[in-house]
């Protein structure tokens, strides 16, 4: 495996920030680290980036043990949540900063910087200072600054969380396409499941410093294996130890009869609260196709109950 992380552990006082985390990642793939705040996502990233000393564990990148290597010697680059651009430098100097410490001629450096500026769509902004840029542009500078040094591993620490929703989706796609174009191996930290599912080959779910599960997005969503995933991922109904997703409840003339007791209109979707024959409440979600059910209406639905493994 290109990246192998085994048993990494970090304690602050008596509290475990991360505990015994192991995973691996193939070259050119993107892994999302998903978890609530305080779950240890950023700690994992900082450990791989070389910003904190681990109490225990080993990190091997491309066959080299980098566990005890300082950050400046690791071929790993981080895009920080706050972008961490150098405020006193232009866009060009920000992007070129890491090249100062690598042996390239001036010509080569300029060439590389220019190519990177074009890649992230910042042409014409070279001489601006960070404070003159929009949030999205800053994000692009941060990404370019990390990519230009051609790291073996790119770490992205909630890079989209400071942007508004539409821009977030645009940049998500850009990051994804740049990652594939450069065939870069990357770890993407987020608390947003949709973001994690849409961008990654593999998702790792964390809770309170412990690894819950590593799997493909589809498996992670469709086959729940543990109580934490059940609570954290997607929305579901529970009954007698079984679960069913909101969206898996569908219209079916052969199904069981329920009564609509509440309607939540969310724009593209509508969530209906239904009462079944045992007087239990169940939620169902439907896309807004122009037809909206009314409170009190009796409908027939098929409910597929699944068992968490």
């Amino acid at each position, binding site marked *: 495996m290109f990246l192998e992380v085994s048993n990494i552990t970090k304690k602050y006082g008596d509290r475990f920030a991360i505990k015994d985390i192991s995973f691996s990642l193939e070259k050119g793939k993107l892994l999302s680290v998903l978890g609530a705040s305080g779950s240890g996502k950023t700690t994992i990233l900082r450990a791989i980036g*070389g*910003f*904190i000393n681990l109490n225990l564990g080993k990190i091997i990148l491309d066959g080299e043990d980098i566990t005890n290597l*300082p950050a400046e010697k690791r071929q790993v680059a981080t895009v920080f949540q706050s972008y961490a651009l*150098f405020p006193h430098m232009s866009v060009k100097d920000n992007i070129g900063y890491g090249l*100062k410490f690598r042996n390239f001629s001036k010509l080569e450096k300029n060439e590389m910087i220019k190519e990177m500026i074009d890649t992230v769509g910042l042409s014409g902004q070279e001489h601006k200072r960070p404070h003159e840029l929009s949030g999205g542009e800053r994000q692009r500078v941060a990404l370019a600054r990390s990519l230009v*040094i051609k790291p073996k591993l790119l770490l992205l620490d909630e890079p989209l969380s400071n942007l508004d929703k539409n821009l977030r989706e645009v940049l998500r796609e850009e990051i994804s396409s740049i990652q594939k174009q450069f065939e870069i191996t990357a770890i993407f930290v987020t608390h947003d499941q949709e973001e994690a599912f849409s961008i990654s080959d593999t998702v790792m779910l964390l809770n309170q410093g412990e690894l819950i599960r590593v799997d493909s997005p589809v498996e992670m969503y469709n086959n729940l294996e543990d109580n934490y995933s059940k609570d954290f991922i997607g929305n579901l109904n529970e009954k007698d130890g079984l679960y069913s997703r909101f969206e898996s409840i569908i219209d079916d003339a052969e199904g069981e009869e329920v009564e609509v007791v509440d309607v939540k209109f969310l724009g593209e979707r509508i969530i209906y609260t239904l009462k079944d024959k045992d007087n239990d409440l169940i939620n169902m979600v439907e896309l807004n196709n122009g037809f909206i059910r009314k409170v009190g209406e009796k409908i027939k639905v098929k409910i597929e109950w699944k068992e968490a493994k």
Partner: protein
Amino acid sequence: MDRIKRDNFLENIIYFMVVLSVTLFILYPFLAVFREAFFKDGSFNFEGFSVFFARDSKLIKNSLMTGVYTVVLTSILSISIAVYVYFKGKKVEKIVFAFLMLTMISPPFVTSLSYIEMFGKRGFITHDIFGLTLNTYGMVGIILMQSIGSVSLNTILILSGLRRIDPNIILSAKDLGASTGEIIWSILIPILKKTIAVSAVLTFVRSLSDFSTPAIIGGSFSTLATEAYLNMIAYGNLNYASVINVVLFVPAFIAYLFYRKSIKEELDSTGEAHMEVELGDKGILFNIITFISIFTLFWIGIQYGGILFSAFSRKQAGVPYFTVSNFIEAKPYLSQTLIRSLIYSFFSAGVGSVIGLLIGHFLVIRKKKLMGAVDFVSMMPYIIPGSFFGIGYILAFRSEPIHLTGTAAIVVLNMLFRQLPFSSKLGVEITSAIPKSETSAIRDLGGTGFNIFLDSVFPNAKDNLAMAFANSFSQSMTTIGSIIFLVYPSQKVLTLVMFDAIQSGKYNVGSALAIVIILITASMNLLVRFLLKRRRV
């Protein structure tokens, strides 16, 4: 009168008093110096300046040179210590700050006294240990002592600048391959440029206006400030003293305008909270910084150790022995002045802190029209030389309508308004930090501006106010710059009798008095901290 009318009336009276007091006790004395320097018998007169430029213009060179060298040395020392502390973390910070606090809470010329005792002609280190008889009086000594005096405040300013930098910026540079040295050189120092410039400006002005250090260890080397002091105290030449102070004022005022501009920009920028990261502390540059920091602290240690040593020792045939007789001899100096100093400092610090908060209230929250000007004027004593401020008081209050010469009031008022910049800066910071929604809520629920002050500003400010009080108290206990011109024998305070003792060659007694002053200011600071800590638990 209904409640709202009554409150508004009261608030307006207080507002009026704040404006009036700042005008009367800062602006008016300030203008009085100009009047004295430029006018004689009611007509414009440039005579004093012609005499000055013909006779004493070399003083400008002396002052500027001393100032520039002090700025360079202080900047190197304080940047080093601040960066060192920043990389080393909380534990080191505590130890370093204990040292730095010493220079903040002791009279400004204490180190000069120690310098004579340790490195002078009969200095303990130069003469007694190394057998040298050096003439260490002159510019070099002044630069060294002024730098030691300024290094603490500058370190604190620069360190708070460092703390405002998003730590991820440092991690990011490291991540891209920068070593610790490169991070310091290509990231931290350029980002801190403005903070460093501000602290350099403050140091420069302090150096320009400091007369006590050159008076004690300058020997034949004289500066503008010392000459102004001598003209006032020794020759009683108010006109010429005013002329010199006006000359001193020019660079100081330019510096002040620069300072105002920079501070504004600084207040506008906010950084993330400091977080625990391992920054890494290696490399040649960091080693140099470590060396400079430790050397400086060691040096401060020696100087203050010297005070302690000289307070508890006397020499017999060149050999020092332990004694408490210095303290016994210091008793007559203390008997009158101790209580008086405490009362003066208490009063000026207490009232000053409240006025500072009121300025913040009227400026930031109430946005009163005149407050921009009041804020500008209230900050002036920060940068105008102490002698300027002292002479201004003599000139402004020597005759009707406000005749205060020789009273205790003139001394206390002078202390109070000289410390006002610290309090009003803090007042503005405190009130700026109060969320606008909080004050809006009070008004929305029927509260008046008066209620905003009592129910929002004041409770929010309590802890900071206590710190401001402790700080002003220390400043008042250790000030000499301006009150030396105002005090009659019946109002002498501790710093002045200590200055007298040193000037008349009683170095050991001076040291004993220094110890007393340091003990008082240190106790006050520790007491306030202790009370705040206990309240928080």
